């Protein structure tokens, strides 16, 4: 009789330990998933709020590329989010070739420093020379928003 009680007690404790373990794992895993969902939604929100437009005048291609580096592209923030004037947040392709962060210089077209707010324009100087005579395309990507400038040199 006593041994039956001890066995029941052991089974009872074991069941509680297993249940606590399951509950703990459940809480931890759901917490991790929640964290991932929150991070992911912040990224999606940032991508949606970001919108850019290349406003360089392809009618005056010399203002974009005069035969020598850099290629200068004017990019306007037409979204609702504030962006940083940091080359690291831009991906630039010239005729499909990726241009590294170290070859980019981003400055506010209106002068001054600080962030790149909605409605403001930045000048992106791309240290990329040796463009042959003909049609060219520069692609600028910020937070997944892609804009293409076609010009003739």
């Amino acid at each position, binding site marked *: 009789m006593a041994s039956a009680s001890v066995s*029941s007690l052991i*089974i*009872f404790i*074991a*069941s*509680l330990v*297993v*249940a*606590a373990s*399951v*509950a*703990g794992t*459940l*809480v931890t*895993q*759901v*917490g991790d*998933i*929640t964290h991932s*969902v*929150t991070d*992911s*939604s*912040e990224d*999606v*929100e940032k991508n*949606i*709020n970001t*919108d850019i*437009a290349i*406003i*360089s*005048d392809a*009618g*005056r*291609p*010399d*203002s*974009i590329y005069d035969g020598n580096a850099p290629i200068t592209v*004017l990019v*306007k923030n*037409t*979204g*609702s989010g504030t962006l940083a004037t940091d080359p690291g947040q831009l991906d630039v392709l010239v005729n499909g070739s990726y241009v590294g962060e170290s070859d980019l210089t981003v400055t506010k*077209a*209106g*002068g001054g420093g600080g962030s790149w707010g*909605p*409605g403001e*324009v930045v*000048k992106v100087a791309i240290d990329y020379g040796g463009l042959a005579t003909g049609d060219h395309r520069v692609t600028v990507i910020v937070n997944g928003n892609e804009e293409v400038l076609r010009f003739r040199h």
Partner: protein
Amino acid sequence: MGFSVSGATAIVFLGAVIAFGSAYPAIVDSTEAISQAQGQQSDRMLEQQNSEITVETADYYAGNDTLAANVSNSGTTALAVGEVDVLVNGTYRDGATVDVVGNSGSEVWLPGEVLRVEVSATPGTAGAELRLKLVTGPGVADATGVAT
């Protein structure tokens, strides 16, 4: 045996409640934030679709090396005067004067109104055409050549 099952079930249920309680507000907040951002994006796209500007006149005054243009808001949205960008020969010009005709000092450029743009400019070579490009806040632009 009955206590074991009841106790274990209670603990797992409690864990599920705690997990749900932490996940639900976060997921609701995330969904609302994305929904709000999508709403703003739709508004921006609508504003862009409804925006249009037309350079009505553009003249060069050699006496004071000034390029002056009258630009009408031919769309159906109000545009921000402060977000109008001026490019002369493809170069961004920060010192341009922009003012709504008849409502000097206004920050809003309403549909049907004309914006007066004045910017100093010098043709590269005598008689060379200057090119003026104006860009609005939503990114809608118009450009024209100006004889000198």
